[in-house]
């Protein structure tokens, strides 16, 4: 056996674990399922880390206290979180960046179009792929053996103790192991099964797009849950899910496929009817609920409709919108019932009570007597040209995972494994039962990746020590 710590996965959490274990002196092998060009999983699509800080710090302005961070998390998860683990993540986020820098990660101030996160989120210069590249380079310098196209199908566990991992016919043993192989969002069949069939007889998940990697098939997650009876956390239908451009590729559409004009116009479903308050709150605070909203519509599709007044006031979309000189023409081009669409728009336009429009504040433009209401930024859609953008649910990552604790150990029937640990999306559900707030996925992955790596190294050197240390 020439590996002390085996890390299964190749994204941020896996790399953090590999780096920490290697720094602790362990001989580490990292198994990435994807080929080199697609390495890094969903981490390659990320852009920032939500960071607690008590005072301004390089790229972060003002302060973001532990309590405020915790309250934000509590709000988005609706209480479906574990306070102890959440606070552990929050505290870790305030101290991990010097370590990240040492491994080659660069930070930059909030991007244009994302200034609302200048206080809470530290952006990676060049985004997540630059971070992943830096970590791989650092890992290789530290002697971590990296293998690509090495998907682990199954692992051997004896009495809760990791023994070996299998890649097809190849058996790899190690003293300890970190599981950081992502959620199951890329597995279409599993999504279909989890979401089931709705009252209209549709299989909603068949119409979902996957914003990230195609390699998160959830093979090991299912293996651990079903074959080894590992303790589970979370609901398989819960995920980070946003409304994205329906023309996005099936996988790896990433950030650019988002549609940011929802709050500036109206959104209609296939029946050309509105179904939710588009102006409830600022888009960055609402985009994560729109994936589920669209998932509940017939055909899991909707259209964001704006007029010329909105152009230049939202992040430019990656694909050009469907453009028309009149609303009936737009309906025809979008393939919507012309009469129903015109009626919806007429009703909306007539209900608008325009005050002082200000898309940078919760303004007083709203509708009256309309169901559902539009509570802010309601202005008649009356200025040609008109644009329509088709929306579909886009899954970023799923929350069903392995239950863990502050040692990152995998648990079997309530007992910690002495040498099997978990990090990243495979356990994010411990902190995120539902909902999302920008950058928290990377905070969880970094915090638990580092803990898992440290614990795995300890377990490798002193079998049985992981318990005590934790």
């Amino acid at each position, binding site marked *: 056996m020439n590996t002390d710590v085996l890390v299964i996965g190749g994204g941020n959490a896996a790399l953090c674990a590999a780096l920490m274990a290697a720094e602790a002196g362990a001989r580490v092998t990292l198994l990435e399922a994807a080929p080199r060009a*697609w390495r890094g999983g969903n981490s390659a699509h990320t*852009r920032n880390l939500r960071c607690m800080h008590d005072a301004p710090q390089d790229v972060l302005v003002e302060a973001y206290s532990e309590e405020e961070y915790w309250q934000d998390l509590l709000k988005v998860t609706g209480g479906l979180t574990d306070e102890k683990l959440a606070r552990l993540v929050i505290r870790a986020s305030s101290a991990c960046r010097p370590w990240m820098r040492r491994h080659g990660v*660069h930070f930059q101030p909030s991007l244009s179009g994302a200034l609302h996160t200048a206080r809470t989120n530290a952006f990676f*210069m*060049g985004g997540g792929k*630059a971070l992943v590249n830096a970590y791989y380079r650092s890992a290789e310098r530290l002697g971590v053996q990296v293998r690509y196209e090495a998907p682990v199908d199954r692992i051997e566990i004896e009495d809760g103790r990791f023994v070996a991992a299998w890649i097809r016919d190849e058996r790899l043993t190690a003293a300890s192991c970190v599981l950081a192989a992502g959620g199951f969002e890329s597995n279409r069949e599993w999504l279909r099964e989890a979401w089931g069939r709705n009252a209209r007889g549709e299989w909603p998940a068949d119409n979902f797009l996957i914003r990230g990697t195609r390699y998160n098939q959830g093979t090991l997650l299912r293996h651990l849950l079903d074959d080894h009876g590992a303790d589970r956390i979370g609901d398989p239908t819960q995920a980070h899910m946003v409304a994205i451009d329906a023309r996005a*590729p099936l996988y790896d559409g990433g950030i650019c496929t988002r549609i940011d004009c929802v709050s500036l116009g109206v959104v209609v479903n296939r029946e050309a009817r509105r179904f939710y308050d588009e102006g409830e709150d600022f888009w960055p605070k609402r985009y994560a609920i729109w994936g589920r909203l669209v998932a509940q519509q017939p055909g899991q599709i909707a259209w964001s409709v704006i007029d010329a007044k909105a152009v230049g006031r939202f992040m430019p979309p*990656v694909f050009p919108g469907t453009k028309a000189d009149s609303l009936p023409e737009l309906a025809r081009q979008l393939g919507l019932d012309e009469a129903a669409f015109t009626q919806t728009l007429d009703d909306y336009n007539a209900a608008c009570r325009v005050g002082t429009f200000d898309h940078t504040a919760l303004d007083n433009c709203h509708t009256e007597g309309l169901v559902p209401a539009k509570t802010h930024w309601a202005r008649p859609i009356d200025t040609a040209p008109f644009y329509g953008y088709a929306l579909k649910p886009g899954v970023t990552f799923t929350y069903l995972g392995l239950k863990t604790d502050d040692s990152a150990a995998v648990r079997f029937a309530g007992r910690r494994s002495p040498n099997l640990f978990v990090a990243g999306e495979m356990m994010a559900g411990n902190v995120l039962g539902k909902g999302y707030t920008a950058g928290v996925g990377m905070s969880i992955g970094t915090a638990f990746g580092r803990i898992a790596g440290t614990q795995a190294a300890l377990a490798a050197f002193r079998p049985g020590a992981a318990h005590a240390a934790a």
Partner: protein
Amino acid sequence: MQPLEALTRDARALANGAVVLSAPEAEVARQLQICNACRYCEGFCAVFPAMTRRLEFPKADVHFLANLCHNCGACLHACQYAPPHEFAVNVPQAMARVRARTYADYAWPAALGALYRRNGLTLSLAAVAGVTLFLLLAAALNGGLGRVPGAGGFYDLFPHNLLVGLFLPVFAFVVLALGLGVRRFWREVTPVTSGQPVSGPAAAEAADDVLRLTYLDGGHGDGCHNEDDAWTHARRRAHHLTFYGFLLCFAATSVATLYHYLLGWHAPYDLPSLPKLLGVAGGLSLMAGTVALWWLRRRRHPLHGDAAQAPMDLAFIALLFLTAASGLALWLARGTPALAMLLCLHLGAVMALFVTLPYGKFAHGVFRTAALLRHAVERRQPSRLKLGDD
């Protein structure tokens, strides 16, 4: 997009008086539409902040951004949409393809812009022609190359006034051609970069960006890319050696000219005279820089830049090296029979280098400086856009 659809769109655009993009320009516009919806690379260089001030990318904007791009590779290695992703985003390569065409498109006189297309050949022919010219001249003036020049040094072979008569018009032409070429570029990009005139601070910033090659530092100071996703300062340093070496050689010639006309001190100068010090330092720096550029170029990541430009790059590097090396060899060979031959080689190389300056890789420095200057002006103006999140 289907070809027929594209043709129809272009025909309609032409009928409306719009400027139709060439294929490389349309490719830049396509990629920037993706980049503008992502923006992860904003911190690397000037291109992306300039991009975020725009929603669309018409021809002039594409030309401006293409020349602002330093081909550092940072955005390629960081890109979640780079090949093999189906979006196939490779901004440095798309920009390089447009850039090469802008040099040709803006060249003055326009007919000579065609020289860019077979630039390696152009430079090689120019080098051969230059050397041949001086060999023939030497034969005609002196009846052979075997003679060791006397106290007058190489003015024994080629009278000073003859050299001035040959090089001065060429130099004047170079300045005129480059000046008019870059003026056409400036006039096209000024309206799309705020139209404002150059201010002192903008000029100072652009000068700093040019002289330090700010945008080869990666935005974080660790350098740019060459063979892989690791950062390196090698390309920046090789450019500095080449650029400052060239400037030192130019300074040596300028000082010598002043000595000649103002002080009546005639060449040859030897150490520790100022022209010699400048010339030797410049020559060595230029040789080291061009060798480093050539070596780095061989190891460059295959997705960087535009492979079609290899002959242009290599011919320019070779000609710069030849100029520097033959110049230093002249000094080392003083008083030997090899001098006459080396002098023909050196003067021929210098002549070829100068004649082709407006129609080769040298243009990248001039056009990029102009683009940096327009960027420094534009970024001081408020953006026309009011994106909600800002």
